[in-house]
C-alpha cells in the first residue's frame, strides 16, 4: 500500500440552484484574459443536456479517458505513445473553438458615437478573437434550463439505453424535468490529461493530489485537451499554452476554500482530504464497468485505522493532515454513507470529485386534469397523508438508467442504493419534523436503505445545515515547508522564489 493524501470534493446536486455564481467567481479570478475568454474552469450545465463543450461526454467523438483492454490492462483511448508523436502535427480528435463557442463582446462605442438618425443605435456582437461582427450561435450555457428539449437535450449521450417511451416522457409538457451539474476539474487519481501530455507538462502534486499544468513546459501539442474526458483542460489560443483549474491552490495553501466553493450560494460544495492507496490505482481503473464505483470506494482508506495512519505517516503525511482526513466531509459522503458517486466512472480516470445525485420529483402523470402519482398507494403512506408518496422516489421522473449512465458507469443498483438512502433520510426527517408519516413506513424506509435513524440524522445535518468549517475541512498544506525543501533558506522566496511569472504570459515572438 502506498497511502497518499488527496484534496477531494463533493457536490450535492440536490442543493444546486443553477445560479452560476461559482462560474463567475472563477472567471473573475482566473480566466478573464485574452485567449481564455471562452474557458470556464468551473461551469454549470443542465442535465439532460449536451453540456459544454457540446456533447463532451461522447468519447467516440472526443476520445478522452482510458479504455480497458482485458484484465488489469488500460490504454489511453486517444492513442498509444507512438501514435501520439505521429499525430503531433494535427491531432485528429481535437475539439475546436466551435465545439465550445466563439467568445464575443458588443460594440458598445456605437451606442455613444452613432450619428443622429431615425433609429436607436444598437451594439452589435463582435468576436473577441477576430474583432469582426459575428452572429452568436452558441454560448457557455446555450442549452441552460432547456432540459427535455428535443433540439438540445435530445442529443445528450447519457440518454443511451433509455426506451423511446422514457425519452418521450422527458419531453412531456408541464412535466419537463432537469437538474444542474456543476463541473470543475476532477483532480483525478488516474488523470487522462497527465498521461496524454507528450511534453510531461502536467503533473499531480504528490502531497495533495492537485493536478497542475506547467505553462513553461507546455509546448502546445494539445493532447491534454483530447486526453481529458471531462474537457477540463483548455487551450489558450492567444498564448499557445493549455490551462486548467488549479483548485485555487494559492487560496487552499493559505487556508481558504477555492473561490467556486466559497461563493456557492446553495452551499452544495464540500472539500476535504481523503487518504487513498496509490498502489491500487492501476488495478482499480482497469476493473469492469459495473465494479468501478465500488473499487474506487475501496481505494479510499479509513483514516481512523491505525495501520493506515502508520503507513500515511511513513509517506510524510502529517498528524494535522490525518486529523483533517478524519474530519473530512468528503470521506463521510463517499465512503461512510456511500452517497456521493464519481461522474462517469467509466472514463477510468478515477475522478476525485464526487456527486450526490439529486432527488427527483415524484413520478406523476396528468389524468383528468389532476396529477396522479403512479404507484402512490404502494407503500401505504399516501392515503393517510394525501401527499404523493415520498417513498416511491425510485420511480423517479428521470429514469434511474439515466442517473446510472452519469454516476455509476451504468450500474443501476448503485444509484438505486443511493436513492434508497436519500429517501430514508427524507422520510425519517419528515416524521421527525412534521410527524405525518407512520412509524412503520419510516422503519421500512430505513431498513430498505440499510441505515439507522442516527445515520439519517447525521446525513441530514451535514446536508442541510453544515457550518462553513464542516463543509470545508482544509488541511494544512505546509507551503512554508515546501519552500524550505525546494529553496533552502525560506527567505530566498523574496526574490528567487518570485511571484510566478516575471514577464507577462503572452506571445512575444
Amino acid at each position, binding site marked *: 500500500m502506498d497511502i497518499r493524501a488527496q484534496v477531494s470534493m463533493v457536490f450535492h446536486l440536490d442543493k444546486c440552484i443553477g445560479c452560476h455564481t461559482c462560474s463567475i467567481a472563477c472567471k473573475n479570478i482566473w480566466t478573464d484574459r485574452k485567449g481564455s475568454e471562452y474557458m470556464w474552469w468551473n461551469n454549470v450545465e443542465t442535465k439532460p443536456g449536451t453540456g459544454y463543450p457540446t456533447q463532451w461526454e461522447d468519447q467516440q467523438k472526443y476520445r478522452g479517458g482510458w479504455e480497458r483492454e482485458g484484465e488489469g490492462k488500460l490504454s489511453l483511448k486517444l492513442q498509444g505513445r507512438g501514435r501520439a*508523436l505521429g499525430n503531433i502535427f*494535427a491531432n485528429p480528435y*481535437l475539439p*475546436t473553438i466551435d465545439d465550445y463557442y466563439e467568445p464575443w463582446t458588443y460594440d458598445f462605442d456605437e451606442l455613444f458615437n452613432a450619428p443622429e438618425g431615425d433609429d436607436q443605435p444598437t451594439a452589435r456582437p463582435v468576436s473577441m478573437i*477576430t474583432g469582426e461582427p459575428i452572429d452568436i450561435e452558441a454560448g457557455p450555457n446555450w442549452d441552460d434550463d432547456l432540459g427535455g428539449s428535443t433540439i438540445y437535450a435530445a442529443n445528450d449521450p447519457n440518454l443511451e439505453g433509455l426506451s423511446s417511451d422514457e425519452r418521450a416522457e422527458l419531453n412531456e409538457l408541464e412535466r419537463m424535468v432537469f437538474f444542474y451539474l456543476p463541473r470543475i476539474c476532477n483532480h483525478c487519481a488516474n488523470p487522462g490529461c497527465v498521461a496524454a501530455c507528450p511534453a510531461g507538462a502536467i503533473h499531480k502534486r504528490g502531497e495533495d493530489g492537485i493536478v497542475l499544468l506547467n*505553462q513553461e513546459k507546455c509546448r502546445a501539442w494539445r493532447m491534454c485537451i483530447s486526453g481529458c474526458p471531462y474537457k477540463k483542460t483548455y487551450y489558450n*489560443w492567444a498564448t*499557445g499554452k493549455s490551462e486548467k483549474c488549479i483548485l485555487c491552490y494559492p487560496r487552499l495553501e493559505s487556508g481558504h476554500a477555492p473561490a467556486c466553493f466559497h461563493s456557492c450560494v446553495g452551499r452544495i460544495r464540500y472539500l476535504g482530504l481523503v487518504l487513498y492507496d496509490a498502489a491500487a490505482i492501476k488495478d482499480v481503473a482497469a476493473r469492469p464497468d459495473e465494479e468501478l464505483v465500488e473499487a474506487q470506494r475501496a481505494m479510499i482508506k479509513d483514516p481512523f485505522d491505525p495501520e493506515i495512519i502508520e503507513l500515511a505517516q511513513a509517506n510524510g503525511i502529517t498528524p494535522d493532515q490525518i486529523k483533517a482526513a478524519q474530519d473530512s466531509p468528503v470521506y463521510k459522503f463517499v465512503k461512510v454513507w456511500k452517497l456521493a458517486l464519481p461522474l462517469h466512472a467509466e472514463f477510468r480516470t478515477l475522478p476525485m470529485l464526487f456527486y450526490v445525485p439529486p432527488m427527483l420529483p415524484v413520478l406523476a402523470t396528468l389524468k383528468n386534469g389532476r396529477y396522479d402519482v403512479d404507484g402512490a398507494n404502494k407503500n401505504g403512506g399516501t392515503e393517510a397523508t394525501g401527499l404523493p408518496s415520498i417513498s416511491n422516489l425510485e420511480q423517479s421522473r428521470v429514469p434511474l438508467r439515466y442517473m446510472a449512465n452519469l454516476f455509476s458507469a451504468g450500474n443501476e443498483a448503485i444509484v438505486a442504493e443511493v436513492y434508497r438512502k436519500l429517501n430514508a433520510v427524507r422520510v425519517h426527517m419528515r416524521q421527525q419534523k412534521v410527524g405525518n408519516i407512520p412509524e412503520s413506513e419510516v422503519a421500512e424506509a430505513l431498513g430498505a436503505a440499510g441505515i439507522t435513524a442516527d445515520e439519517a440524522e447525521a446525513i441530514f445535518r451535514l446536508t442541510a445545515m453544515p457550518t462553513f468549517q464542516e463543509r470545508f475541512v482544509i488541511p494544512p498544506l505546509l507551503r512554508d515547508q515546501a519552500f524550505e525543501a525546494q529553496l533552502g533558506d525560506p527567505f530566498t522566496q523574496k526574490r528567487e522564489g518570485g511571484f510566478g511569472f516575471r514577464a507577462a504570459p503572452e506571445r512575444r*515572438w
Partner: protein
Amino acid sequence: MNTFLFAVVPYLAVVIAVVGGIARYRWDRFSYSSQSSQFLESRKLFWGSIAWHYGVLAVLGAHVLALMFWDAWGKMLSGPTRLYSFEVAGLALSWLAFGGLAFLLWRRLSDSRVRTVTSPMDWVLLVLLLGQVGLGIWMALGYRWGSDWYLHTIVPWIHSLFALNPKIGYVTALPDVVKAHAVLGFFLMALFPFTRLVHVVTVPITYLWRPYQVYLWNRRASRQ
C-alpha cells in the same frame, strides 16, 4: 563576398542559433511553444500541416544522413535505378512539403481567426521556408542528380566547416540557385531562436518511455 557567405555566415548562424536558443530558453521559457492554431481551424490544418511536416522531415533527414554517412550514401546511390528512384522520391517529398506549406500560408491568409494569431515573425518565416523549399525543387529540376553531387560539393564544404578549416572552393563554382539554397539554410538556422521554430528542439521524444503519470512533490525534490 564568397568568403563571407560560405565561411562566416555558417559560423555566425550556428552561434546565433545556439546562444539565442539557450538564452530564450533561460529567460523566456514561456514562449517555447509550437503555437498551434489547430484549435481555431482544424480541417485545413490537417492537410497542410501533415504534408508539410512529413515532407520536410524526410527531405531534411536525407540532407543530414548524407552529411553524416557520405560513404554509405554514395554506395547506396551507385546504380542508375537506385539513383533514379531516390531522386524521384526526394522530389515527390519536396513537392509534398512545398504544397503543404503553400496550403498553410493560404490558410493563414484566408482564415481571419488564424490571421489574428499570426505574428510578423510568422509571416517572415512562412515566406522564407516556402522560398527555401522552392529553391530546393528548382535545383532538383534544373540540376539533376543532386543526391549524388551533393556528396562531392556541399558535404566536403560542411565537413571543412566542422574542421574549422573552411574550404569554400567546393561551393564557389556552384550555380547561384544552389548557393542561395545553402545560404538561406544557414539564415533560417540563425532565425531559429527568434521564431516559433524553437519548437523543433522540444520534440517530446521522452514520451515514448516516461511513466504515464507524473507526480511532483513539493516537499521533496523527486518524481514518482
